[in-house]
């Protein structure tokens, strides 16, 4: 087996392949203050391959690639491009060395056209006209060569996210990149768009390009890559051939121990109706309709999963149910109407009605990062009699209660006197989850419960959600991770463009069908391929929005 944590990734004297690696990093280290983001990392990427880099959030993948792209300067270490030792002090030198990068958050000027974005920084001469004309022609050739079709005159903000990503890839190719780095490229794509992306990447590989794919999704690594390097806590723990490894083994390498990828759960036993939502509408500050008449229901003892690409109304759904924004329509808890617009439409009243809310963005809405863990552990419930003595809060009671939560939810470090920002993402999330679940709510609203959370904590949080369901609470789960939705939900509703596109049972559906619904495609019209139907729909939505 090629897995050998000690020698993997190191240059070996007897390399099997005589060609020089497209990229070789030797002993790269980088620290941000006291945090060692990269520790003595060495890696070789052979030309014409797709090389995956996998690791949990904060493992140092993005830092490593930013060093390669000249965005950061490494504290120590050497970079070799095609066997040549290369200094990359800035992005310009990276571009000159043939490296192109597609960042997780696109670096596009949103009110510029595709062409303008592509020539930015590589214009020929001081006048724009000739540069634009040349780019238009080159773009046509590239589009034909790699099936990367984008309207050169479209304005970026009118394009779907998938097409914006194509512009980023075209930008790199226009700069004659031979090495393409993609950082978490599928995070914002529907499954159909992700498939399309991987077809493009395969095509690029055929043409001899070298591709580095950074992701935390095991499935993508298994499907798309030739070799894979695993990072854990700033270190490169292994480099293996993808064909010689398995998701289980990669997960173990990422986390450092065995993990359960499947969630064990019994079939649901839905009871009485808890949450009934009818024709819920939300219009935001800009006057844009975010929810266009959503109806759904959740019973006691069941998990309704809301699937969809981010930004299709899921956030607003959670916020209006949680009492953060106002809306119109009808929402009933245990048959009783709740106030959606008046003075009782606040989070506190919702909590009293048994609605607990784990918000999508825990650092902005779930916690106060500079407050102690014990303070964070009581927010929203601080008026509870058990936390108060007369006019004053009973801090000893709150701390005692927090310590119990810390123990039950295995929050580390187990110290309620640390501020929230001193905990890792997973442990921060556990503080929020513990606070919201410990009251045995009628219904738990939970948004992106495992975003930026390490695998070990994911496993734990999933178990807790299932346990809460088994104890008879209703759960409304919103997640952009299809795997999470499929494995946790008892029923799945898919949102697109502020509407529920359809409801499915997990056993009766698959990623393909859900992926189409996520793009607003209910039925693929005759004579049109699935990808075409998806793209047409997403482009229309982007233009409208």
């Amino acid at each position, binding site marked *: 087996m090629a897995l050998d944590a000690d020698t993997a990734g190191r240059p070996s004297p007897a390399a099997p392949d005589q060609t020089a690696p497209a990229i070789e990093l030797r002993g790269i280290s980088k620290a941000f203050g006291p945090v060692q983001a990269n520790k003595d990392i060495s890696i070789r990427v052979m030309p014409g391959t797709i090389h995956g880099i996998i690791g949990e959030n904060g493992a140092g993948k993005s830092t490593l690639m930013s060093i390669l792209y000249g*965005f950061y300067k490494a504290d120590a270490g050497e970079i070799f491009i095609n066997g040549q030792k290369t200094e990359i002090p800035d*992005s310009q*030198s990276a571009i000159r060395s043939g490296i192109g990068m597609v960042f997780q958050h696109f*670096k*596009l000027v949103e009110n*510029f056209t595709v062409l303008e974005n592509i020539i*930015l920084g590589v*214009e020929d001469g001081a006048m724009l006209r000739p540069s634009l004309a040349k780019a238009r022609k080159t773009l046509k050739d590239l589009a034909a060569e790699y099936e990367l079709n984008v309207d050169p005159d479209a304005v970026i903000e009118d394009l779907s996210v998938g097409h914006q990503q194509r512009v980023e890839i075209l930008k790199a190719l226009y700069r004659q990149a031979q090495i393409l780095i993609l950082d978490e490229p599928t995070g914002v794509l529907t499954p159909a768009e992700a498939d399309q992306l991987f077809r493009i990447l395969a095509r690029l590989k055929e043409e001899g390009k070298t591709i580095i794919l950074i992701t935390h999704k095991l499935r993508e690594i298994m499907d798309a890559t030739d070799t894979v390097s695993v990072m854990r806590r700033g270190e490169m723990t292994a480099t293996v051939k993808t064909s010689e490894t398995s998701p289980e083994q990669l997960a173990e390498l990422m986390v450092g121990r065995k993990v359960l990828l499947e969630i064990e759960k019994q079939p649901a036993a839905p009871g009485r109706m808890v949450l009934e939502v009818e024709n819920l509408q939300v219009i935001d500050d800009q006057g844009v309709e975010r929810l266009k008449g959503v109806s759904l229901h959740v019973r006691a003892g069941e998990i309704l999963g809301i699937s969809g690409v981010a930004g299709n109304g899921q956030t607003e759904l959670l916020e209006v149910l949680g009492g953060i924004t106002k809306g119109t329509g009808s929402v009933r808890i245990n048959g009783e109407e709740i106030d959606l617009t008046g003075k009782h439409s606040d989070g506190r009243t919702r909590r009293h009605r048994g609605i607990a809310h784990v918000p999508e963005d825990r650092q902005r809405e779930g916690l106060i990062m500079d407050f102690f863990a014990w303070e964070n552990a009581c927010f929203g419930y601080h008026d509870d009699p058990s936390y108060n003595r007369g006019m004053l809060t009973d801090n000893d009671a709150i701390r005692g209660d927090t310590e119990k939560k810390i123990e039950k939810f295995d929050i580390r470090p187990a110290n309620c006197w640390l501020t929230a920002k001193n905990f890792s993402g997973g442990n921060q999330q556990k503080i929020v989850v513990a606070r919201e679940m410990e009251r045995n709510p009628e219904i738990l609203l939970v948004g992106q419960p495992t975003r930026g959370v390490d695998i070990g904590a994911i496993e734990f949080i999933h178990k807790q959600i299932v346990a809460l369901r088994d104890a008879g609470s209703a759960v409304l789960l919103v997640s952009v991770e299809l795997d999470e939705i499929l494995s946790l939900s008892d029923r799945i509703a898919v949102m697109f463009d502020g509407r529920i596109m359809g409801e499915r049972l997990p056993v009766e559906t698959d990623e393909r069908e859900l992926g189409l619904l996520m793009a607003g495609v209910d039925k693929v019209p005759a004579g049109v391929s699935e990808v075409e139907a998806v793209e047409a729909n997403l482009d229309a939505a982007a233009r409208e929005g």
Partner: protein
Amino acid sequence: MDLILPVLDTTVRLAIPLLFACLAGLFSERAGIFDIGLEGKMLAAAFFSAALAAVTGSVWLGLLAGIAASITLSAIHGIASITFRGNQLISGVAINFLAAGLTVLIAQDWFQQGGRTPSLIGGARFETIDLPFAEALSGVPIFGQIYADLISGHTILVYVGFLCVPLTWWILFRTRFGLRLRAVGENPAAVDTAGISVVWLRFAAVGICGILCGLAGAYLATGLQAGFVKDMSSGRGFIALAALIFAKWRPWYALYATLLFGFLQALSLRPDVVELIFRVPMPVQFLDALPYILTVVILAGFVGKAIPPKAGGEPYVKER
């Protein structure tokens, strides 16, 4: 016609300092640097141009001194907000106070005339230019009159100001520099990852802003008036900012917006014309207040939605 033409003529002369300042703000804000220090830069330029012109007798040396003063203040704003990533509003406010105080202080110390410069005469002022055939055509009704009275007979800076409009448009939308400048105001990260220096671009924009503010101030003291008096910019920098928002950060709209403000200011100088048109006497105070009322209305967002450059006001910090 005989009533309207003088008002329009005044409109042009009053619009020019606004136009220079508005285009100055346009360059700066399009690059993502908000600049409420236009006022202060104009004032400093007005003083130094008048002072140098008074001392040397050359308006051109005065103009250079005014531009130099304005660029110096721009550089301070640039260092504070680009290099040290400080708050752009605070830096702008500081420049306004600095200019308001220092000009009067230096003027008093230098000329001992109560915080003003001596009146400028002869070559120390910009003379009006009569365009060719203005005299001959003045007899021709309407077109001849417009040419002779409205278009001809301004100082050189007026014509430079109008030429700056197409020039600004051309730079912004037809050149590489303009593309990068607009990009850095919208998404500096895109510029940075394309391998272009965000800092350099923003300093270039702030520098151009300084030159244009210098022209605005010099015109005030050596073209429109004959010398510097205390606080002579009288809020024109802020009116220019309002005009910039009104113009949605576009050069041609900036021309129209500043002409509108110039017209309102011109009206307040000719209450007799207003009375003749509306047949009722308007209080002069109301007419005086009109440009400022319009400024408030625009800044309060009553004239449609204006979307500023997205990265405006935000110092650029690299992030993952």
